[in-house]
């Protein structure tokens, strides 16, 4: 019943206004770029030093000196610019981006974000630019499955994993719902077709209310590739 990752990306893309400067976190959020509606010009920032990131190049035109933050080959669109890391993080930390879309392990009802370490992590700790983006960007959107693979909720009263930043998440897009983080806690704006508010509450680890004009979360059928 829920959306797949491309559909969540598609749903987020619908809400990004024309002319926005946007950073897409590494991993699932990168998919959002593929679904920007026709006619909107969005400037994508990559924290390793470029604005105006374009799609990946054909294999034979890859250049390892032109990468994104996920260290994958990308292209630059006309109007793009290169700059150094400190200037790039000045943009991030100084609040010059309009929006960032970040993956999440957990989100609390006060907007705390945990997305860089879990307590069960056996990997080395690795934070990258996550704390800079979360703390510095005026509007932070989390993109995540509503529950972890074992079914435990990711939207919680309080995060149990180490925080990335406190009180920063404005909205969460999941496979099941679009949820705003408000002074009154989580407020569902859209719920996936066929699911009741109570069913969503069962999958949410904090108090959840519904917006007055609660909508239905839908997305077109999308292949694995960009739609």
């Amino acid at each position, binding site marked *: 019943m829920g959306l797949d990752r491309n559909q969540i990306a598609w749903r987020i893309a619908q*809400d990004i*206004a024309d002319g926005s400067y946007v950073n897409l976190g590494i991993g699932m959020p990168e998919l959002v770029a593929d679904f920007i509606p026709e006619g*909107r010009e969005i400037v994508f920032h990559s924290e390793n030093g470029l604005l105006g990131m374009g799609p990946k190049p054909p294999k034979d035109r890859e250049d390892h000196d032109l990468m994104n933050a996920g260290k994958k080959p990308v292209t630059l669109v006309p109007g793009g610019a*290169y700059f150094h890391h400190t200037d790039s993080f000045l943009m991030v930390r100084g609040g010059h981006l309009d929006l960032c879309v970040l993956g999440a392990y957990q989100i609390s009802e006060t907007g705390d974000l945990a997305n860089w370490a879990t307590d069960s992590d056996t990997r080395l700790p690795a934070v990258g630019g996550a704390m800079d983006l979360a703390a510095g960007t005026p509007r932070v959107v989390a993109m995540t499955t509503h529950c972890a693979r074992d079914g435990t909720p990711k939207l919680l009263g309080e995060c149990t994993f180490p925080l990335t930043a406190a009180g920063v998440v404005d909205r969460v897009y999941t496979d099941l719902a679009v949820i705003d983080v408000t002074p009154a806690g989580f407020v569902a704006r859209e719920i996936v077709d066929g699911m009741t508010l109570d069913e969503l509450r069962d999958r949410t680890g904090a108090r959840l209310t519904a917006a007055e004009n609660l909508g239905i979360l839908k997305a077109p059928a999308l292949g694995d590739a960009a739609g």
Partner: protein
Amino acid sequence: MRGIQDIPRWTQPLRTRKEDAGRGRQLIDKRVTSFEQALAGIEDGSTILVSGFGNAGSPIELLEALVDQGARELTVVSNNAGEGEFGLAALMRAGRVRKIICSYPITSGSVVVDELHAAGKIELEVAPQGTISERMRAAAAGIGGFYTRTSAGTRLGEGKETREFDGHPHVLERPLKGDVALLRAKTGDRWGNLIYNMTARNFGPTVAMAADLTIAQVDETVDAGELDPEIIVTPGIFVDRVLRVPRRA
């Protein structure tokens, strides 16, 4: 599905882009075609960051057009305090500047600031040049405050929190943010990317980053992609409006 009824607040761009969407273009285009468009919305009481070192890089025509625009009670941040009766001096002469923050108000011909100050009609705050510059950068970079040796132990450091690092006293300086930046560059493109000419670069890149609304006057405008991405000095993310003002002969 495209027609979600209540587009949420945050999906609007944060900054004042595409004010002229009325002309029906779908692409980002920060180029405006009149002083009125360039200066629209500047309010009384604004803090205006101004580029330029002497006349090099000074947005003289924008400053003069700001007289017509009408905003009053301005706080101006500028390295110098104008000369002759043009540019910043004209704005001050028109009585629009309540306060000026600068490092060096004295130049040959800085008569207007002299007169206004003597008459008690303008407030003057003098600060070290590098401190003004770094404070603007701090505003741009989201820095809440920074410690510097400059001005520690001097009259200009009096009253500032002082703290020792590495054996030297440092003063705490706070960010200096503008409501508006007015600057002059050489070339601006559709996305607001800017390049400069020689030492006229000076404060331009810094003021561009440090204000909510950044307005550049340029010698020439070009389309997106016409500036080599390696040589862009001010990326367009910092710039809201670009106005071509032909360079005076």
